[in-house]
């Protein structure tokens, strides 16, 4: 899946756009989705999904897989959020939707709990849609340039650069070794799988250390002394049509939120 996302980020229709602008836009929307009412958050989710699927032309299948997989954490924590546990004899002072009793304890699903997960769900979908817009539309190498612009320490960027270069190589090695073990009858049964996995990790560790030596020679031969000089930031202009839509959209959402708050206050 990671490889798929990575290659989409290089091939999507919005790739030529300035990475700084894309990230700025998505982060602004992310902040907005944190500060607004659920109704606005829902609008943000739909609008950002339109940017990713419609404008960047990311296949809907991959988009939904990513969002769905990320939501598993939410699903698994739902019980903890909606179920209240209390001793049987305690007095119920909350609105209960459904209850179970278990020995001396009472388990109940409360209406406030349900409301909480409802609100939470809208918020996570909104913020996920913002972050996945960055993820699908901006290649990692361009993200590095953005991070450089916002003054992330250079050392951190250099480490990230090397990590990104070698991720795919190490993944491939791990995968090939896994396949080789399978082909020789390995990776079956719990004990064997544990042992085989340990072997893969060790072999990968040894290969990583070998790479360290050869890569430092390779870089020194190309004039590496202290720093890894990165390519300078280059940005293409953002088409007027996108600029217009983003500014108008953002302002409208902001105004809507202010209006909602105003009304809320005057009612309350």
């Amino acid at each position: 899946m990671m490889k798929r996302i990575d290659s989409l980020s290089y091939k999507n229709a919005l790739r030529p756009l300035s990475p700084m602008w894309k990230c700025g836009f998505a982060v602004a929307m992310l902040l907005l989705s944190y500060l607004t009412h659920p109704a606005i958050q829902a609008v943000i989710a739909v609008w950002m999904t339109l940017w990713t699927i419609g404008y960047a032309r990311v296949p809907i299948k991959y988009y939904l897989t990513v969002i769905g997989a990320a939501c598993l954490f939410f699903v698994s924590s739902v019980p903890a959020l909606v179920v209240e546990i209390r001793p049987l004899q305690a007095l119920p002072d909350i609105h209960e939707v459904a209850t179970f009793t278990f020995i001396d304890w009472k388990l109940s699903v409360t209406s406030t709990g349900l409301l909480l997960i409802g609100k939470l769900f809208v918020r996570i979908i909104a913020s996920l849609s913002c972050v996945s817009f960055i993820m699908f539309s901006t290649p990692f190498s361009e993200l590095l340039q953005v991070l450089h612009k916002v003054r992330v320490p250079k050392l951190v960027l250099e480490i990230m650069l090397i990590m990104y270069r070698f991720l795919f190589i190490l993944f491939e090695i791990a995968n090939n070794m896994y396949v080789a073990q399978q082909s020789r009858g390995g990776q079956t049964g719990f004990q064997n799988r544990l042992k085989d996995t340990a072997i893969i990790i060790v072999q990968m560790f040894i290969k990583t250390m070998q790479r360290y030596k050869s890569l430092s020679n390779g870089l020194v031969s190309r004039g590496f002394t202290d720093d890894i000089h990165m390519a300078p930031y280059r940005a293409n202009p953002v088409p007027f049509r996108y600029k217009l839509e983003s500014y108008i959209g953002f302002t409208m959402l902001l105004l809507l939120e202010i209006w909602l708050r105003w009304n809320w206050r005057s009612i309350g």
Partner: protein
Amino acid sequence: MSTLLETIEVSFSYPASQTKALNKLKLRIPEGKKTAICGHNGSGKSTLFLQAIGIHTPSSGQVLWKNKPLTYERKELKQLRQDVGLVFQDPEQQLILNTPYEDVTYGLRNAAVPEPEITRRAEAILLTLGLEHLAHTPIHHLSLGQKKRVALAGVLVLEPKLLLLDEPTAYLDRISEQQLVEELDRIHSRGITLVMATHDMNLAYSWADWILVMDRGQCVMEGTPAEIFKDSKALNSLGLDRPMLLDLWDALPEASRQGVSAPRNVSDFTTLLQKVFA
């Protein structure tokens, strides 16, 4: 000619890729022969091998082992991976344990062979492949040619019926290559069906008695070496070259070629030349 392995309209793509690695592939591996599968990097040779041992399953179509479609059940897969041995191109990724002896026993232990038999069989196969003096040398001290032999030993020790070799001679020097080829001939003479994926047309020509040509996930040609290399135009259009010896053979005058089948290795060619000039 009975068929050991067969694919019927098998299609398959890797998760991260848009192109099909196998595209309605129809192909048969004849039993008892030395088959070479030729084609470029990326033509689907390695993917086919992973289908053959059930690591990948077709997205459509069927893989048949001994004329029965694979069901991919746990038990069947276990048996299949003992019957079909796969030697990968890069021995680094296939060799798992620290010494040739330990590594050779890996597959036997997975197959739950009793310990005394493991020792016996491992020692026997190391002896056969001339590796007994290296049995307890750490693998990272071996040369590439030796590593390839160890990888071969680890697969052969399971006594497979079909042996698949992915680019077995890639990057070997000519002497190690010759040793390996001789080894393969000995294995073949014990009744094991051999299949080799290679893009070295010289090797395919001199070694195989059946050739399949793959291109973009399909099998585009099949036949004996003589049949395949007759059609040099078709080969060129696939970006494959003709064996060097055949080119030289064709440069000889018709008269001296008449009635003699084309030589398949350097020494045959030399004796032939000497005969022509005698």
